């Protein structure tokens, strides 16, 4: 994912021990915890064609081999093909002497200029190109083998049933019919035993087994005598993109049907509630449920590359941004380093502070007026902007070289609204305030580097 700011610098630790930037995490409001990509189920919600946006469900897509019927892909560069029209002069039906322009359609790639005319596929009268299914020369043999396999499987099943029936019959023999169930049991058993109809089914199968031979066709002479024209041979990627035909020459390439893409919905593994659920309509980019961690947890960012010196407490400015709709009370606290890659001690301010949501503060920046100025060499709140707070912390690197990595605990309150069922009035919203803790790991960079 390309980002404007380096998101890999600040990572949040999730319960499975992995560390990810906040933009890659989800937030489950029932478990009240951050969830990484591995802690959610990725379920396919529906499929869609990336070109015509035609939606389809999994079963329907499976029947169509997960490919669109109308959209085509260039076999040379995998770009989407567009339908172009050209007018051709055709003799008029009424008057063979006159020529009338007629529109003929062909497929063309706007990226690499490949056209269906390059592989001598004739232009069509209609704009929709339909694929002609290939006839596999091995189909008959494969069907024969499948039938033989079914026959063998049936016989094996009959053998197993016969053995099971005889053993069962032994155990029920001689028991008096006290509750009138023996007749029912006998009827069930008779279904599994060999009946007359089953026995009549094929007792033998006429099957030609494959013969192994040592004689292999020799390589044709042209391989040795004629020079290879690289531009005429399809590349391996082009050849394998069409597994049905597997064209060897680039003159055999044919347009491929465009593959469907899935739209995922994500579900928390712990509590089975949905974390991400897209809308049914493909062209809508909004989500029904969008519990991205960025929208529920304050985001920590490094303001600028700090100038770090080994063994000394160096000032570093972090910013905390609130992208949610609620006001956060935030408290930072130190974390005992349990990770071997932690190579610095981080001193954080001990007081808690507020981060308002967007559009709630005064635009004249009066929030900065009542801040106590932070002395150089100490920690505290440096500045405030709308929904962002700048914090001065101190970082003491404990190694001489390599990346300086420090960690601290980010505690914030979270007002969760979950639906709770109550017997009297049905479902009603419940508001609960809870304090959440997230270990944050920050890569401060290397010693001696500074952004200025």
């Amino acid at each position, binding site marked *: 994912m390309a980002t404007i700011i380096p998101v890999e610098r600040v990572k949040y630790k999730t319960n499975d021990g992995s560390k990810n930037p906040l933009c890659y995490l989800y937030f489950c409001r029932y478990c009240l915890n951050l969830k990484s990509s591995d802690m959610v189920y990725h379920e396919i919600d529906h499929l869609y064609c990336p070109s015509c946006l035609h939606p389809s469900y999994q079963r329907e897509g499976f029947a169509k081999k997960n490919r669109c019927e109308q959209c085509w892909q260039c076999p*040379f560069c995998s770009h989407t093909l567009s339908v172009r029209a050209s007018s051709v002069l055709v003799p008029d039906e009424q008057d063979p002497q006159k020529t009338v322009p007629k529109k003929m359609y062909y497929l063309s790639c706007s990226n*690499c200029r490949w056209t269906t*005319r390059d592989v001598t596929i004739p232009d069509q009268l209609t704009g929709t190109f339909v694929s002609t299914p290939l006839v596999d020369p091995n189909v008959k043999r494969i069907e024969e083998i499948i039938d033989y396999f079914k026959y063998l499987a049936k016989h094996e099943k009959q053998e197993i049933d016969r053995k099971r029936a005889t053993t069962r019959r032994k155990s029920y023999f001689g028991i008096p019919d006290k509750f009138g169930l023996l007749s029912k049991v006998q009827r069930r058993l008779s279904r599994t035993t060999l009946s007359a109809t089953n026995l009549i089914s094929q007792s033998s199968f006429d099957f030609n087994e494959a013969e192994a031979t040592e004689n292999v066709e020799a390589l044709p002479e042209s391989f040795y005598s004629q020079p290879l024209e690289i*531009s*005429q041979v399809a590349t391996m990627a082009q050849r394998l993109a069409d597994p049905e035909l597997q064209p060897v020459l680039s003159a055999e390439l044919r347009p491929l049907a465009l593959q469907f893409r899935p739209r995922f919905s994500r579900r928390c593994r712990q509590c089975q509630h949905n974390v991400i659920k897209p809308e049914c309509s493909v062209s809508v980019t909004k989500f029904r449920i969008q519990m991205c961690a960025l929208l529920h947890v304050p985001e920590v960012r490094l303001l600028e590359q700090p100038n770090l010196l080994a063994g000394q407490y160096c000032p570093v400015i972090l910013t905390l941004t609130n992208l949610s709709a609620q006001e956060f009370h935030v408290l930072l606290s130190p974390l005992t380093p349990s990770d071997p890659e932690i190579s610095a001690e981080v001193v954080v301010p001990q007081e808690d502070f507020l981060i308002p949501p967007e559009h709630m503060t005064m635009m004249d920046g009066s929030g900065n007026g009542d801040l106590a100025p932070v002395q150089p060499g100490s920690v505290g709140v440096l500045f405030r902007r709308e929904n962002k707070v700048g914090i001065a912390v101190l970082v003491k690197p404990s190694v001489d070289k390599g990346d300086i990595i420090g960690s601290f605990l980010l505690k914030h309150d979270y007002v969760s609204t979950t639906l709770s069922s109550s017997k009297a009035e049905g479902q009603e919203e419940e508001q609960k305030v809870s304090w959440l803790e997230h270990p944050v790991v920050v890569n401060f960079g290397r010693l001696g580097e500074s952004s200025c």
Partner: protein
Amino acid sequence: MNIQPGAVVCKDSVVTGDVTIGSKTVIHPKATIIAEAGPIIIGENNLIEEQSIIINRLESNSDSGKKRVMIIGSNNVFEVGCHVEALQIGDNNVIEMKSKVGRDVCISNGVVVSCGCTLETKETIPENTVILANGTRRTQLERPAAPTSQVEFLTKIFPTYHYLRKAQGTK
């Protein structure tokens, strides 16, 4: 500078040196044609778009006394931002946007140099080749179409919006 009658050369373009421009060729404003090391001869029905640079560059090292002629054929399209120093360009070629063609390259007919491609080595590109930005090449069966419809349209439109350089043989 020798502009044949029928050519449309905007005054805003930079044309310096001994440049011959054939008829029905359209040169957009902000195009640059510099004949340093020798004359440039441009054929007919070409389309040279904005910010494209066609230079017959003067090399500082050897053979500075020799004059080298750059010959560009007909029906070519030089798209926006391309940089061409090749001495021989044939007919019906398309040099796409922001591509660069070096001096030692010899382009035959029907060649398409895709967006962003750079050709620097000494070679002759065979006919009807398409060169993609990642280096792959393909031979197509048909040549790219001549820019006739665009040239006709621009010949009508340009005089109403831009000042043009006077062609030889007109009043």
